[in-house]
């Protein structure tokens, strides 16, 4: 329990098997976009729908990974990560809207008969500035919120509630038309990104590959983090914050760093999500979405590197099947999942696998 490392899991499951499975998964993920470029009548062709679905799930997996950094390692359960995800998405969406609108105003603004862009839209026609915003918007918000929260040592349930209220407030704010970010319709009907057609198979394949790359990069980041002293301090912070303080560490800086890092990762995931899915609206910020992310992590196994990815994949895979097959029962299933995982699988699927394969 106190060694929250992938190392532990893989060592026990047999490092070679785990490595082999991982390599196969990565290869499949890399092959998917290439297969989608095949002509439509080819037997191995992957449809745009499948590619989008898998791309979406990969974005969610990055969110799960980011949430696991703060929850699994530092013991801070955030119920507001959807906010950071959506902020990154909105920053990217602003750029895409400007691309779609050309020299004019985005469609929803002309609809509201606005004549000029609000100040926060300045510079969003440049891709580079949009990328900066993707990092800055969630990063700064997390920095300010985290600075206040950790300064007064808000933790545990209090912290969860405050983050939930934060994302709820964000959702209300973005629902307003006067906020100037599309109201409850959000941003949609994008056309081009960097001059490329956003719906063309080539662009989709590139975006997908970028998502895989980001996922692998964040996985590597998590791996380094978990092995480093920083990771150890975080784990100590989760298990006994007061003892850590008596040992002479100031927990605030550690918490703040991992919190902001996690928020930025979420923002990046959101920025990759929007061009692939083609829409971003305030419902992404609803507390429901954020708390669902927590169950991905819990199901997969928190404090493990691979767990959140497994969890996000499993839950979202089931969701897309369930909502088509038995739409009324999806919420029952999800609710039961919340209860059963917390009651019987405190260490998640990874914990289960570990039990199965005692080395």
């Amino acid at each position: 329990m106190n060694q929250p490392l992938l190392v532990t899991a893989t060592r026990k499951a047999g490092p070679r098997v785990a490595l082999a499975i991982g390599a196969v998964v990565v290869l499949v993920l890399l092959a998917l976009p290439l297969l989608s470029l095949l002509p439509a009548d080819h037997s191995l062709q992957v449809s745009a729908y499948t590619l989008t679905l898998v791309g979406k799930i990969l974005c969610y997996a990055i969110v799960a990974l980011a949430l696991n950094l703060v929850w699994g390692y530092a013991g801070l359960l955030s119920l507001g990560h959807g906010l950071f995800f959506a902020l990154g998405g909105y920053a990217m969406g602003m750029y895409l809207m400007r691309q779609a609108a050309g020299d004019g105003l985005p469609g929803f603004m002309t609809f509201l008969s606005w004549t000029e862009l609000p100040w926060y839209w300045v510079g969003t026609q440049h891709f580079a500035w949009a990328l900066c915003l993707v990092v800055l918007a969630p990063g700064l918000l997390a920095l300010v919120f985290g600075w206040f929260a950790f300064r007064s040592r808000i933790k545990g349930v209090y912290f969860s509630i405050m983050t939930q209220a934060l994302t709820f407030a964000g959702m209300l704010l973005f629902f307003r038309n006067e906020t100037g970010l599309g109201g409850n319709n959000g941003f949609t009907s994008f056309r081009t990104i960097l001059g490329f057609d956003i719906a063309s198979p080539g662009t989709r394949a590139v975006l997908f590959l970028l998502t895989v790359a980001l996922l692998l990069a964040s996985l590597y980041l998590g791996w380094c983090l978990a092995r480093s002293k920083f990771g150890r301090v975080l784990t100590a912070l989760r298990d006994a914050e007061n003892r850590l303080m008596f040992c002479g560490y100031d927990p605030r800086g550690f918490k703040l760093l991992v919190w902001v890092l996690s928020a930025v990762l979420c923002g990046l995931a959101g920025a990759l999500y929007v061009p692939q899915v083609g829409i971003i609206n305030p419902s992404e910020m609803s507390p429901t979405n954020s708390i669902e992310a927590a169950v991905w992590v819990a199901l997969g196994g928190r404090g493990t590197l691979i767990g959140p990815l497994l969890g996000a994949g499993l839950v979202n895979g089931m969701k897309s099947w369930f909502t088509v097959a038995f739409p009324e029962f999806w919420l029952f299933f999800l609710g039961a999942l919340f209860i059963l995982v917390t009651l019987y699988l405190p260490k998640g699927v990874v914990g289960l696998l570990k039990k199965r394969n005692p080395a």
Partner: protein
Amino acid sequence: MYRFLLALLLLLPLAGQANEGEFFLAAKPNEQARLLQDWAAQPDLARLGLLTSLKQGRIAADDTRKVRLNNRLRGLIDNALASHQLLSDDSYVRLAAARQLQKSAQPAQVAFLDRRLASEADAAVQAALGLALANLQLAASEPSVRLAAVRLLGETGDPQARTRLQALLEPGAENDPAVRTAAETSLVQVQRKLLIGELLGQAFSGLSLGSILLLAALGLAITFGLLGVINMAHGEMLMLGAYSTYMVQVLVQRFAPGAIEFYPLIALPVAFAVSAGIGMLLERTVIRHLYGRPLETLLATWGISLILIQAIRLLFGAQNVEVSNPAWLSGGLQVLPNLVLPYNRMVIIGFALAVVLLTWLLLNRTRLGLNVRAVTQNRNMAACCGVSTGRVDMLAFGLGSGIAGLGGVALSQVGNVGPDLGQSYIIDSFLVVVLGGVGQLAGSLWAAFGLGIVNKLLEPQIGAVLGKILILALIILFIQKRPQGLFALKGRVID
């Protein structure tokens, strides 16, 4: 015209009421209007019955023929009826009539209103009547009469007086400088009085919101204080309470229609029992196994809330169900011309305070309360002294859920009842608990009313959404100062 002259003849006291009715029925619409205007200027008590029937579209209570009325005629009938009601012996009827005339009086009625004002004994009616007259006198030709009218209008707090004065101050509407200055001062006076009414109204709706937050948060504060876990399904207990009210309403309507007026009272124990029962069941089956793991409890109870919402959605449909107010809860008390306090909201404020009082008595004056407080303060020590902590947990959880059920009954009387009812209150009630401190009745009380009032005062200034965001920011800043809430239990325990 010939017929009209005939009508005037018929107006002689000798002519019977029935004849007037017949005549009205036979007349053309514009003649009917003339008739009504004449009647309004020279009321006769004998005509009251006819006008009352005309309001219902007949010429007499026992007459089955329908009178065809248009909106103009209906307005004139109201006006004529009011001026006749001024002759009534009942001062309430006269007051209502004078209020009606403030809106609808016509210049032809000046002489009659003047006479009534002189002979009126009741002070309230006199004031209302004076205002009605002042409204008319604004159009008088002598400046002195207008001046008096303007001054009189300044002493009221009526939104109508404001409109009239503003109309008078439009360029070119009033040429006499003395009247103009008087109108300006009067307008300022009226606006000040209106502002007071508005502020009081906002404070009242703040109190009302606060009482609902209190009912929602009270149980949450108890369970959080006792078990250290946040029950995310607490909002659904509110919803269950509201749906129990709906069920009781339906059942009472079917089996005992005579008691329908009192169904909310019957719903109270039912809602308490349903919510408390389900709460205790959840505590025994799920939450008990998660003690010491507050974050996991958060997730598990969220799962429970998803299941409950979806179950209600499948049972009752995703649409809102209709819960009606009984007669004694509808309507309101007119305090100021622009301030009406709805009865249902007043009752709920009283009800919330009563629930707090009962909870306080339960926690401080009973054996169970003693045990609950002991376990809240130190679980292990209480267990060592022989308190059955498991049983206390279960009962306290049931109590918290039951209070939420009572809150659901209250909510069903002021808002929509739908499967998502609980979700809209849960975040606010969490904030109440965070602000008020854990397991503290006084803290919850102050925090709930404080949040409610600040919310409603901010709403008209900067909008509901920005108000909510500002409140959240304020709470975050506030817990910098007092991380344990307003009223923290003093302790020296560190984990």
